[in-house]
């Protein structure tokens, strides 16, 4: 009787571990050491041009340019 009980318990343990085991699916990716990983290309930066076609002298920025005007040397709109 004791052997029967032990066999039942062992069977239950075994079936439980099998039931919770992971199952392979079609989408599963297998580890392949030859797979090449591509890094994301750097995003292109957009630099606005000033009215002279440059990138803005003295930090004036797009739409402005550096010259000697009514306020002396300063950034003036195009």
């Amino acid at each position, binding site marked *: 009787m004791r052997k029967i009980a032990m066999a039942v318990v062992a069977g239950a343990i075994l079936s439980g571990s099998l039931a919770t085991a992971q199952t392979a699916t079609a989408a599963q990716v297998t580890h392949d050491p030859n797979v090449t990983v591509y890094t994301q290309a750097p995003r292109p930066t957009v630099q606005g041009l000033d009215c002279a076609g440059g990138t803005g002298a003295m930090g004036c920025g797009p739409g402005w340019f550096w010259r*000697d*005007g*009514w*306020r*002396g*040397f*300063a950034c003036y709109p195009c």
Partner: protein
Amino acid sequence: MNRPLIAIGGMTAAALLMAGMTIGGSSRAAAQPDDYSAIPVSPNVITDSTAYTAAAPMINPNGQPGVTTVYTHRDDTRQITNTILVLPDPQAATNAISEIRSGLGDRVSNGRTQPAAVGTGGTVVTGTSPDGTKSVSVLLFTEGNAAGSIEFEGPKNDSVPLDLVVDYGQKQDTAIKDSLTT
């Protein structure tokens, strides 16, 4: 032996007293009420601080009590003529501005008038010189018994920005208040 020392001391004191009177006298002369040469504000206060050079102030321009100072830009294409008239009362200042405005046709063609937040009744007339070769803007305002007329003359395609006119005019207005109330 003590008498020469006393005499020297007395002479020194007298000399110092006279020097003090002379210095005091000259300082009073410099502050004569009809010397307005210190009233005009240099436009360099609103620029990179070296853009304009002032000519010698003209006291009592056209026989009127006041001062005119001409500021010339280092590139020699821009000029600011700042005239402050100090008249007996505010009504006389208003009349002077009306007279200047009525004569602006000789200095500004195709003038466009817009209000400016400077002093009392501040206005800016913007156009070109009669020969069409330059831009001309004239700021007119009164402050108490003072009449201000500031003319900005520059390249035809680069008239003075309105914000600079207002900025400079407000600083001039403040200088008038400070000068005429002390």
